[in-house]
């Protein structure tokens, strides 16, 4: 394997097959090569910067993002206040910096939870044939409800808190993960190595975990990045519509939602957090596309 060159397409193709070659080494090589283009590098830099801002928000010239200052309402940006102030005199830069935390938590949380739950449900649907029908019809039903509406409905009955919003943005993402995992399990369950493992009397949990789950890792990684991006957008949209994170918490969606009334006077109230949100989502999407091209999990779809 160490002799393999990037041009050795046949070996690459063989390694792409589930269980063929030494997929881990090849995958890493492909990822490293895929990441060498300039858009990907730029995306990594932007993402690192956003994570840095979120982690070290208190040290970056910010004040308390909830601090009201009636004497300094609606100040223009790039004056005494870097990004201006909002209608309550709160510092917009501070709110944007702290808001990065909410967006990243929402994206990461939804990605991790939906991938984990989707993996479990997908393996069950793919292996136990009798459960396949009911599970997949449920997933079809969830997918038939447009994501934003499902999230709105969930938040409106449970009341807005960070946890309920996280749950509400995660649930619409689960069916796509389930479909992906189930498809993968169905395609490997007939493979000779699975039959061999079965014949050797491998216990079912071990069989699933060791022989079936690894084939889902590559597509799930890519799907995870798309969930990350889409969940950040959903969170911002929910907050923007007034059905998201409680308004007293600084999140990008909340800043934009409160800025709607003052858009003519201070477009920055919407455009600054909008810029941060778009750049973050863009970077995650570029990384996801690069990962997909490197790993080529054909089953991953954006929709």
């Amino acid at each position, binding site marked *: 394997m160490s002799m393999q060159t990037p041009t050795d397409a046949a070996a690459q193709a063989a390694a792409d097959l589930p269980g063929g070659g030494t997929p881990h080494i090849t995958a890493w090589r492909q990822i490293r090569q895929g990441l060498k283009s300039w*858009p990907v590098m730029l995306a990594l830099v932007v993402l690192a910067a956003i994570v840095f801002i979120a982690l070290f928000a208190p040290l970056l010239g910010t004040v308390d993002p909830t601090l009201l200052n009636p004497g300094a309402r609606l100040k223009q940006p790039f004056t005494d206040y870097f990004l201006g102030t909002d209608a309550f005199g709160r510092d917009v830069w501070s709110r944007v910096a702290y808001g990065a935390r909410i967006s990243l938590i929402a994206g990461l949380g939804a990605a991790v939870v939906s991938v984990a739950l989707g993996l479990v449900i997908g393996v069950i649907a793919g292996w136990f044939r009798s459960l396949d029908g009911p599970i997949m*019809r*449920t997933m*079809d*039903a*969830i*997918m*038939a*409800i*447009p*994501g*934003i*509406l*499902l999230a*709105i*409905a*969930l*938040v*409106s*009955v*449970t*009341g807005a808190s960070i946890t309920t919003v996280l749950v509400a943005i995660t649930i619409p993402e689960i069916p796509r993960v389930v479909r992906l995992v189930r498809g993968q399990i169905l395609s490997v369950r007939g493979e000779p190595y699975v039959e061999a493992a079965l014949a050797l009397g491998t216990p079912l949990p071990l069989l699933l975990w060791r022989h079936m789950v690894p084939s889902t890792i590559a597509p799930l990684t890519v799907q995870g990045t798309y969930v990350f*991006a889409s969940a950040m*957008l959903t969170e*911002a*949209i929910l907050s*923007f*519509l*007034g*059905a998201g994170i409680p308004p007293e918490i600084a999140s990008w969606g909340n800043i*934009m939602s409160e800025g709607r009334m003052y*858009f*003519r006077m201070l*477009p920055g109230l*919407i*455009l600054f957090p*909008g*810029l941060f*949100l*778009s750049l973050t*989502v*863009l970077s995650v*999407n*570029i990384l996801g*596309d690069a990962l997909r091209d490197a790993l080529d999990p054909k089953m991953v779809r*954006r*929709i």
Partner: protein
Amino acid sequence: MLAFVSRRLLATIPVLVMVAVVVFAILRFSPGDPAIIMAGDGATPERIVQIRQTMGLDQPVVKQFFIWGGKLLQGDLGTSLMSGVPVTKLIAQRLEPSLSLAVLTLVFTLLVAIPLGVLAAWRQGKLLDRAVMGFSVLGFSVPVFVTGYLLIWAFAIKLGWFNVQGYTPLEKGFWLFLHRIILPSLALSTVYVALIARITRTSVIEVMGEDFIRTARSKGLGETGVLLGHALRNAAVPIATVVGVGIALLISGVVVTESVFNIPGLGRLVVEAVLARDYPVIQGLTLFFAFVYVFINLVVDCAYTVFDPRIRY
């Protein structure tokens, strides 16, 4: 064909039933008493008891579902707690702006995205292709309300070409109507254009590797003929599929766009219902949108035979 359509129609029934179960479960199994949630803050105990009785919440859960489902079958989506108006009537009142927005966006998207996708496939790897793909990633990443406000800022506030917000019904005159709905449609279409351009490009590139493309070229067919007559024609099925699936994006987008542009459609109705905690309206609209989505995808499935005569049912 008729047999297929009826079979396909029957196959949507389980999905629709499951949608109803999911929507019902969201209300019924959420933490807290649905009657208290529906009554809202500051409701009197009498009001809560009244709601519990009118909704039949004192009945067993399964019975409740069948009562509710039976009303659904009769076209009863529930009644607004705020206005006391049936949800179906509210939908009828608010349908025109949303439908106009969605249809115009769809038309605009197809007119722009398919040529873009074909061009990108034709110039695969070249500058034009990378520009289209770059736009596509951007379209996925910039949320519709940011696009909307950017358009308002540039074309309505700075240039003064359009009204900032609002909606003019079609009956007031087509051009007036069109003038006011252009910006919202443009904002809403970015995501959809990104999606359709991408799938068009991928599908056309895939078809371009087929033997019959080589045959078409070798018989002397020009590049336009190959691209449109053979490649796009054969790429139509995956494109149609994604157009159908993308309706979910379009519906979500309508909800947001209407809020940005202050359009009194179904999306605004949802948001008003959320703010007023008018739960039957949220529930009814969620069901309505899901049914629309399922129905459109059914139509798309049936349209496959038109795009690809090899598909026989």
